[in-house]
């Protein structure tokens, strides 16, 4: 059987090779046709035939109307919001008077440590008078965005006043505190840019970073070594340094921890690696520095070295809104490309005149800053030995931050513990304190705690009362 196969194969091969090696059979158009040329021509024809055949794909069957109807009927959406249980409802204390150092809550007078009224300007006579004048002249709202007759002369005056106070060429006003930073960042940082940010920045900064679609690298909270490492890494990997914009985003006083950023160190690193700084001074404007000009004044850094400074005016200046300042190029660019400026109504004019009056007050009475500093030092001293809580903020920060010495296990029980401390302090000792509340959308991982906002108009007895109350309540609750 095998022999027969071999014979057949050999004869077929002989037959093929004979054709292959056949001498010239014909001459067509002067080209001699050898036998092998015929085979090759046949091969080419077969290949071309196969190429022109359509390849086999399983036929695409789009969904029929009936099938789509069935899918739509079957689909069950999740509820819009998760189920609310009894213990999740939280009623904040309702104020019945101005949010000064002494406020009235539920009919009782309390010592108020929950308002960021650092210079004690809430209820100031001069500011109230200028607001009354503005209200009678301009009404309440400004009824339009800045580009469409919403620019009132008090806005322009306020911008010039802030720029003159800080020593920068120009500034721009925004109509709400948190919208300032999350409009500024996407106006300057686009896709492909590199941002190195502190991991403890608050939600508005995080939202701005997300909306900007740039590459964001976080460094450890207030750790300059970690910042240097990240800058080194990013500079090494970047391909076109002339075309890629690079920014460092930090806050002067961090809301989530009360730490102060070491600006001189950051400026040294920025000049070494060629980055620009975006500094959020919401809690340090009007607080740090000999004249209240902020972190640059405090660290002795010339203000021109910081590229973009933003701040919310809802803290020391006791009004609302925000501003951004920097070089003329920086400010001009925002007038057309910052979405919170272009697409939103402008700041109500009475708030702008309140800001002007507040900056005037700060220029005329710089002694209020030293009073604030003494108050912070006193409170810091008193609170250094609260049982179960430890101070986590900087000694000069007006946000005095206390965190739990030992966590109770889960985040939820920690929050419950701190909430009960605050509640008892309010009900029994009439001291209003705030706990940090984190939104589920916030990506910050820093520990939560109790926050006391110290004001220059708190008296010594207020501070001692708060400290004593905290010590007593913490001893009861955390044992």
């Amino acid at each position, binding site marked *: 059987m095998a022999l027969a196969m071999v014979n057949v194969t050999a004869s077929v091969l002989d037959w093929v090779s004979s054709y292959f090696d056949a001498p010239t059979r014909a001459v067509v158009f002067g080209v001699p046709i050898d036998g092998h040329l015929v085979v090759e021509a046949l091969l080419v024809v077969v290949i071309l035939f196969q190429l022109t055949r359509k390849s086999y794909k399983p036929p695409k069957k789009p969904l029929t109307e009936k099938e789509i109807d069935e*899918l739509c009927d079957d689909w069950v959406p999740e509820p819009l919001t998760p189920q609310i249980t009894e213990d999740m409802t*939280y009623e904040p204390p309702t104020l019945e008077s101005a949010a000064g150092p002494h406020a009235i809550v539920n009919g009782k007078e309390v010592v108020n440590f929950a*308002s960021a009224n650092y210079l004690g300007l809430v209820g100031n006579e001069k500011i109230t008078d200028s607001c009354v004048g503005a209200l009678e002249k301009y009404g309440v709202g400004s009824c339009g965005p800045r580009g*469409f007759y919403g620019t009132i002369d008090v806005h322009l005056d306020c911008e010039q006043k802030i720029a003159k106070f800080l020593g920068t060429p120009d500034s721009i006003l925004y109509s709400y505190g*948190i919208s300032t930073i999350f409009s500024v960042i996407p106006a300057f940082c686009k896709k492909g840019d590199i941002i190195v940010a502190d991991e403890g920045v608050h939600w508005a900064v995080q*939202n701005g970073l997300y909306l900007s679609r740039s590459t964001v690298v976080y460094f450890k909270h207030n750790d300059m070594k970690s910042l240097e490492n990240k800058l080194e890494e990013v500079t090494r990997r970047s391909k076109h340094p002339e075309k890629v914009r690079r920014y460092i985003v930090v806050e002067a006083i961090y809301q989530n921890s009360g730490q102060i950023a070491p600006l001189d160190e950051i400026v040294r690193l920025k000049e070494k690696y060629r980055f*620009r700084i975006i500094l959020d001074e919401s809690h340090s404007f009007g607080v740090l520095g000999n004249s209240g000009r902020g972190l640059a004044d405090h660290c002795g850094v010339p203000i021109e070295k910081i590229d973009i400074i933003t701040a919310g005016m809802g803290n020391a200046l006791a009004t609302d809104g925000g501003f951004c300042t920097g070089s003329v190029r920086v400010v001009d660019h925002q007038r057309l490309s910052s979405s919170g400026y272009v697409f*939103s*109504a402008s700041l109500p004019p009475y708030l702008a005149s309140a800001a002007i009056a507040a900056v005037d007050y700060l220029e005329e009475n710089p002694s209020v800053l030293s009073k604030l500093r003494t108050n912070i030092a006193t409170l810091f001293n008193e609170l250094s030995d609260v049982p179960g809580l430890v101070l986590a903020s900087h000694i000069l920060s007006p946000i005095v931050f206390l965190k739990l010495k030992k966590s109770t296990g889960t985040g939820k029980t920690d929050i419950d513990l701190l909430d009960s401390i605050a509640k008892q302090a309010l009900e029994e000792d009439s001291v209003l304190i705030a706990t940090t509340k984190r939104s589920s*959308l916030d990506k910050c991982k820093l520990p939560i705690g109790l926050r006391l906002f110290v004001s220059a108009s708190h008296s010594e007895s207020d501070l001692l009362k708060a400290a004593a109350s905290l010590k007593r309540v913490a001893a009861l609750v955390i044992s």
Partner: protein
Amino acid sequence: MVRLPYLTALTTLLSYGILFVFGHLRDFFRKIFDWSKSNNLQGYAPICLGYEDFYTRRLYLRIQDCFGRPISSAPDSWFDVVERYSNDNNKTLHRTEKTTKCLNLGSYNYLGFAAADEYCTPRVIESLKQYSVSTCSTRVDGGTTKLHTELEELVARFVGKPAAVLFGMGYVTNSAIIPALIGKGGLIISDSLNHNSIVNGARGSGATVRVFQHNNAPHLEEVLREQIAHGQPRTHRPWKKIIVIIEGIYSMEGELCKLPEIIAVCKKYKVYTYLDEAHSIGAVGQTGRGVCELLGVDTADIDIMMGTFTKSFGSCGGYIAASKEIIQHLKRTCPAHLYATSMSPPAVQQVISAMKVILGEDGTNRGAKKLAQIRENSNFFRSELQKMGFEVLGDNDSPIMPIMLYNPAKIPAFSRECLHQNVAIVTVAFPATPLLLARARICISAAHSREDLIKALEVISKVGDLVGIKYFPVEPVKPNKVEHLKKIE
């Protein structure tokens, strides 16, 4: 609907083409002249690379004096516009001390609460003295006052929903609420002409975003069917939830949304609806309750209703009105509630007083008079403009009326000429509108009297003839045949 005549489209494209060519030529020469000057950036990348700000530098700066005009009085029906001059061909503008009194057709002052009002202002000043300018604190810490709780109840009652929550700024309301409601794995379907705050909020939430054609309920149904059937992109898992976002009145078109049809589609497919009533709350409807009242839709059918206080109530801030569970959830998670300074108490009092006037609870019928006045004013103005031959967009009863300009040169011509005749007009161009569809937008207020409107009509007609924007033939006899206007030859 905008019907763009062919000749106009051609001339507009030609104008933009010439402007771009000139702009590029100037950039080219600028680069040559600056070759010798040293670059003082020292290794930093410039803030705007290449052609990112070409539109700003070469097109917008030429007509910069038409935008951002400062005023020095309240934005009432007549106001004082500050005069500005420029020494370097419009690159920088400087204010002078002189002002001109002009008729205000640009501010969002629908019910006339912008200036000092006899009922509202004394109460606002009283609340200022009691609660001071700001609470310096967030709503959850120590920034909730009695005024805030009172206003939340009043807003819920006014809008027709069980509960409401307040925010200090309308823009932030949208940008911070949408991420709290929906996240990755959800789908947002928004109208193609939605406002920038909604676009930002949708982008910030992390959900997938799809767009449906403006005001087109059949197209919305088509998009919904396709998306539900196919599920999430690439994994084809079913969507977690779907939200459709629409606006009451679209501010660049002046059109009302087709609310009954869209709500019917949404109910059929079990999707949630979000209605942004920034321009329509307080301005349309028999008692000022917005598009739901005007179009006869039950407020219980819409899941979330959002609005702002800037336009009709003469204050600042925004609100969300929905069921009690949604509001509780938002109060716990929304970042704007937990981290932002609470609304300034005098502004809250202004809204409370304005709402009381509208509802008639102040003891007079000024509210009803204002609502009737704005309806009458808008309808009269719109019909007169159409009779004169202008191309006016928008529906009846809407207080916003855009007049089409199209050509880029007509924008500054119309704006400056009207200002010379003491009428202040707002003109809008790219990027707020599509490139070819530049327009002048008029906002009517209840504070405008009949004489004001007649003067405005005279001036606009004169300037319109001068500039050449009467695209439709003048109709002397029949004022109501809007649908049968012929196209230009």
